[in-house]
């Protein structure tokens, strides 16, 4: 009845060959190269490089063992298998029981292989744990706080201008700017559940655990734009709890700090004049659930995109911005967000003092464009399920008309 089946099996080699070809074709898709934005192979810092080297040692050692052991296994399987009826019914082979000498030497060999792995492992453990003594003085300190589902970054050394000439520690959200070429020591804290701080190209992850003073260090070889990700399951939106790290050369870094220490930017212009044209952008379209919020263009040169973002928007409408500023407190956005100098001091959500100068919002999830920004404030939970901002909308009965949204977007983007 199933006579055709052996033929079928023979024919099934074709899809196998096709699959093989597809695998090779996969090169096109970074499959073998593994040089994506979160690659642990295409590393750009000494910590990640050390970790990669340890990894390579393990790969080579196990590969050699695999070839040896696998070779013997394959040989034994092919050599000793029963090939025909005669083999099947032959007398059983000699019933030998073992050979202690072979066992012992193989055990010895395994131990030796493990020693080869253990040495770089130990070195790596000590190296990656903390900034090397020689560099300690040069290290830059930052405190990262995990929230469900975003990151807050504190710069303990920098005092920023607050309300009415007060000073407060500099705080940013979701985009961490660090000096390139300098070790950065990050203190890891969390306000709720366990999160994990992971910038694959710079350093392996370390968890942010409640009631625990963890830290990690990393260093970027040269200026760059890096993808980060929370790496410990932390509830509904763990998958989209991302962040970015931007490493800048000394000059750029100082300039950036300079700008950040200022209070939120106030747009100058004729607020009263009604005849200025409104900033135009497409009215909110409907987004698919989980729709990507990062454009391909942005991806090509993220660092350039970031730099461009530092300058004020081209077609700013002062009237709209002012309206947005009004709405920000009217709609109680200020209850959760801080905008230094604009009378907003909430700490439930990210600091928005310079939100306009970030390339991404909602914890690295979507690009900071008017369209995406409106998508976010229009319905945060559609972007990020279970989001605390959406919870706030419901609890505080915040509703926004399309006009409100447009104004708020203009205002937020003006905060450079």
């Amino acid at each position, binding site marked *: 009845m199933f006579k055709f089946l052996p033929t079928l099996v023979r024919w099934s080699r074709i899809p196998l060959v096709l699959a093989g070809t597809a695998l090779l074709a996969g090169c096109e898709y970074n*499959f073998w190269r593994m040089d994506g934005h979160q690659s642990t192979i295409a590393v750009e810092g000494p910590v990640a490089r050390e970790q990669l080297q340890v990894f390579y040692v393990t790969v080579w050692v196990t590969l050699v063992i695999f070839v040896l052991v696998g070779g013997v296994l394959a040989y034994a*399987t092919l050599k000793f298998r029963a090939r025909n009826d005669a083999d099947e019914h032959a007398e059983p082979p000699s*019933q030998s029981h073992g050979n202690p000498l072979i066992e012992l030497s193989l055990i010895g060999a*395994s131990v030796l292989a493990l020693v080869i792995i*253990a040495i770089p492992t130990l070195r790596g453990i000590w190296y990656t744990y903390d900034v090397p003594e020689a560099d300690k003085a040069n290290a830059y300190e930052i405190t990262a706080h995990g929230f469900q589902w975003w990151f807050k970054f504190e710069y303990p050394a920098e005092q920023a201008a607050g309300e009415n000439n007060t000073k407060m520690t500099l705080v940013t959200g979701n985009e961490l700017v660090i000096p390139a070429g300098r070790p950065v020591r990050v203190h890891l804290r969390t306000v709720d559940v366990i999160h994990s701080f992971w910038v694959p190209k710079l350093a392996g992850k*370390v968890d942010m*655990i409640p009631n625990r003073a963890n830290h990690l260090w990393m260093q970027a070889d040269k200026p760059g734009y890096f993808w980060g990700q929370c790496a410990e399951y932390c509830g509904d939106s763990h*998958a989209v709890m991302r962040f970015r790290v931007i490493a800048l050369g000394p000059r750029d870094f100082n300039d950036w700090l300079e700008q950040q220490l200022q209070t939120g930017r106030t747009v100058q212009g004729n607020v009263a004049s009604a005849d200025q044209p409104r900033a135009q952008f497409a009215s909110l379209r409907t987004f698919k659930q989980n729709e990507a919020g990062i454009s391909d263009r942005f991806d090509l040169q993220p660092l350039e995109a970031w730099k461009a973002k530092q300058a004020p928007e081209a077609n700013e409408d002062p009237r709209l911005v002012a309206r947005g500023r009004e709405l920000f407190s009217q709609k109680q956005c200020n209850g959760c967000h801080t905008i230094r100098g604009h009378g907003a001091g909430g700490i439930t959500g990210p600091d928005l003092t310079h939100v306009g100068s970030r390339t991404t919002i909602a914890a690295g999830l979507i690009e900071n464009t008017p369209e995406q920004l409106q998508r976010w404030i229009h319905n945060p939970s559609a972007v990020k399920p279970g989001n605390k901002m959406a919870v706030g909308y419901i609890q505080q009965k915040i509703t926004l008309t399309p006009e409100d949204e447009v104004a708020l977007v203009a205002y937020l983007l003006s905060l450079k």
Partner: protein
Amino acid sequence: MELAKSAYLTKEDHAPTQPKLLTHPTVKAGLMGWLTTVDHKRIGFLYGFFALFFFLVGGFEALLIRTQLMVPNNDVLTAQQYNTLFTMHGTTMIFLAVMPLSSAFFNFIMPLQIGARDVAFPRLNAFSLWMFVAGAIILNIGWFLPQATHGAPDGGWFGYAPLTSKTYIPKHSIDYWVMGLQLLGVASIAASLNFIVTIINMRAPGMTMMRLPVFSWMTLITSFLIILSFPAITIALVELMMDRQFGTSFFEVSNGGMPILWQHLFWVFGHPEVYILILPAMGIISEILPTFSRKPLFGYPIVVFSGAAIGFLGFAVWSHHMFTTGMGTVATAAFALATMAIAVPTGVKIFNWIGTLWGGHLQMRTPMMFALGFVWMFMIGGFSGVMHAAAPADAQQQDSYFVIAHFHYVLIGGSLFALLAGIHYWFPLMFGKKVSEFWGKLSFWVIFVGFNVTFFPMHFLGLNGMPRRTFTYDPNLGWNFPNLLATVGSYVLGIGIFIYFVVMVYTFFKGQRVGRDIWDGRTLEWSLPNPPPEYNYRVTPTVHARDAWWYEKNHREETEKEQEAHAQEEEAHGGIHMPFGSIWPLITSIGVLIGAIGVSALDAGKDPKLAVCLVGGAVMFIGIYFWSLEGNEGYHIHLDKDGNVVREEHS
């Protein structure tokens, strides 16, 4: 059998003094026969049945997961559903599929291998089975209740505090997880205690420990791992339950609690647990390879000893799951080295399996195919394990798809392949039928290819930075193609499993009947007719060598004479003692189930929580009390030379 076999029990010969309520159920057929059964083979069969059912459920969940991840930014599932699915997939596969499937073999095969007529405590064995079912029910009950306030567990299979506390997941989903695992723990511990006593005390004469079949050895070691590791998670779960239900502060930071403690307690259990999943598999492989190589296992004592070493070392490496928790240099180094050390005894097993093949006459039957597949796949999984053990490298791999790849290679390529091999291997013994070689091999190849296509790309995904437990990913990270490949692979794998099961069910009903000992086996269970009679051995065998049945086959005359002498002796002592069935283990489990529902599903203040718990407790207590009053009497059967029952004596 427990005491009946013992000299202490002499009351059977009394006139019946059993009150009505405690008359023993004697039905063997029908639903009641199954519910009251204490026969280790029936219990083993039931374990297997439930385990395979839950394997399909867990596999179905996996397919949903893979479907969601097929393309970037997919929206087949919501984040909530996805998180529930991977939690339940992991929990189901580990606790409701692989563990009970191993347990099915422990129950069915181990007593046969050691030449026993039953386990030491048959009713306790039934109790373990029903507790397992109760735990499975609690774990899955949330699917059928309102998702907003109940829902199935969604805290990840290791349920890290404080995410699982009431503050962050107020709904009952976590309560189900806590209670479900708690009941499964009781079931596993009770079963393991039983196996330990059985293996140590119920061996046939001459079956010394160093003649014990390796599968039975691994049963023993696994049982030890279970009784010694489950208490840690029991305590962790108790603490979590106290936090959730009585407002204690074990993991409550505002009162000084340290959530890291949960991780330690969990992994003190969790790592031995993964060896609980692999050691039975290694036992099965150590039976299959010699049989189909027609040679004894190479280096038997070393294989046994390395199994014990793996079990023992397994308790000293738990923190390798916590390399990224900032343990400090010394602790990290210590656990890294200890973890690497495990590669040595594991390697020893691999070497000895190859040594077994060497110089043999390999018969490439389906079980052998799966067994060889196991050796290859487990080796790959083990190597990625060693890569994890190198702590600095693990800082990049932890919680990435590299881990997913590692543990699916050891869990599927390892545990599951071996269990599937075991099903094929013992199927003729259990049911007297044999799966067609063609279909068996076909299912093997489809599963093998599908499995590798699914999980090999995940290594690359992990190295390319894809974190696990993510319901969505962006298209610009280089993960699209491997994910697509993995999803396609998982469908192929699903088809393979589907073929496997269809063939199995077909064979069960319509398969070709085969005679006894079709593989020319080496261990005692193959000396039995198939399916084995309820009393297993007409005459308790006497063991003269390590591969007892092989020896018997080669010394026919001598053993036959010996057996007849034994048969007469046993007959003179009153025939074969059989334990009565009992309903009380089931009643006790039902009581526990009711209580567990009270604890996990109901809100104090709103529902009659306390009342339900008390009712459950009362039922449980009645069950236990009547169980103890019922006594462990049995009846005797007398057999003729061909194993036909000639007389049954009920006392």
